[in-house]
């Protein structure tokens, strides 16, 4: 989140509420998850770390507002972030070990666990799919949703493979 906010400030200094509006537009229906405080908390932390500088701007009819801009250190951080190639770790290893453990200890039926997981993922997929279909053509949020959908699909396919594997194990 910090990196995103820094990157958004790279173009020009902005108010906190402008930043939030831009984020919400990019996220589409997922933006609802973004509460108003989250942006300000992030900005506060960045200011404390010396990555952004805040300037108070007086307003005649309301309280003063802060306009945030990047510091030199902030610029460096943005550049470093752009060059970064790290990728969120998939959860498959953890789930796999869970199944192995369950099977070894005879705690439960691994296939039942897979099925339960699959139901959960399918429900999630249904929700994401519904949100994706509601997006107009060409929206950037739809692109984000498609990514999530494709990942879930991949996970579901892997779960199918898991189910086949553990069924075979049980039979053997």
């Amino acid at each position, binding site marked *: *989140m910090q990196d995103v906010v820094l990157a958004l400030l790279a173009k020009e200094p902005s108010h906190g509420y402008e930043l939030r509006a831009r984020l919400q537009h990019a*996220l589409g*229906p*997922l*933006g*609802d*998850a*973004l509460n108003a405080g*989250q942006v300000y908390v992030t900005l506060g932390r960045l200011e404390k770390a010396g990555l952004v500088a805040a300037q108070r701007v007086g307003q005649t009819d309301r309280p003063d507002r802060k306009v945030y801009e990047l510091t030199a250190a902030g610029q460096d951080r943005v550049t470093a972030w752009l060059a970064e190639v790290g990728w*969120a770790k998939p959860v498959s290893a953890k789930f796999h070990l869970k199944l192995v453990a369950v099977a070894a200890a005879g705690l439960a039926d691994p296939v039942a666990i897979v*099925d339960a997981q*699959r*139901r959960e993922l*399918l*429900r*999630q*997929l*249904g*929700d*994401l*799919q*519904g*949100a*994706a*279909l509601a997006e107009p053509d060409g929206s950037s949020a739809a692109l*984000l*949703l*498609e*990514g*999530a*959908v494709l*990942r*879930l*699909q991949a996970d*579901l*396919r892997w779960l*199918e493979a898991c*189910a*086949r594997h553990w*069924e075979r194990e049980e039979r053997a």
Partner: protein
Amino acid sequence: MTANAVLRAAGLRKEYGRGAALVRAVDGVDLDVAAGEAVAIVGASGCGKSTLLHLLGGLERASGGELSMAGERFDTMSETRLARLRRNAIGFVFQGFHLVDELTAAENVELPALLAGVSPRAARRRAADLLERVGLADRSRHLPSALSGGQRQRVAVARALVNRPLVVLADEPTGNLDSTATTDVLRLFDGLRRNGHTLVIVTHDSRIAATSDRLITMRDGAFVDETRLGGGARRLGSLAGLGG
């Protein structure tokens, strides 16, 4: 057992071959599809889901069990009565589109209506309405060869609806499509579901499966799992990997 089941199967079986080579493609399936319900049947290829769909559509004869459509048994019907049932109560959407190459989009949509004895004028009107609904009003005079995969499948969906069937049966409707075309077809099926059409979709594509109300998993010819979908307003943000 719901009282208002449109399509019902009980103890449905289909076997091929005999002796050691006996294959139980469908092995004791019970299914009730309520009016307005969208049911997806998923499973790996070869699990028997296509055969099940063919049995449900009366395209193949079951080895055992009962089938009924709107309360009427049809597993024992003659070929001719089955044909009448197919044309009046069932709409098919196939994986390979199965459009008639020589006929325009509109003529493909008209065909089942003409087969059902609808007057040419009425058939043309229905076809025009449906093509409008699937967003292909401007393509009605094109031959299938001039349409993209997604457009062809949309024509096929329009064709499935032309006789106002009780139930639409779809076999891998996104099977031959790329991602964009798949989205088109997903949106179309989602629309059908919302408009209260009764749908049975067999697929291994979890995306289209996830747009249904009920999701049935099939393995080795039998139902092994069932999930009701929708209803839960989830925090989409976390689903998309947006940790706080």
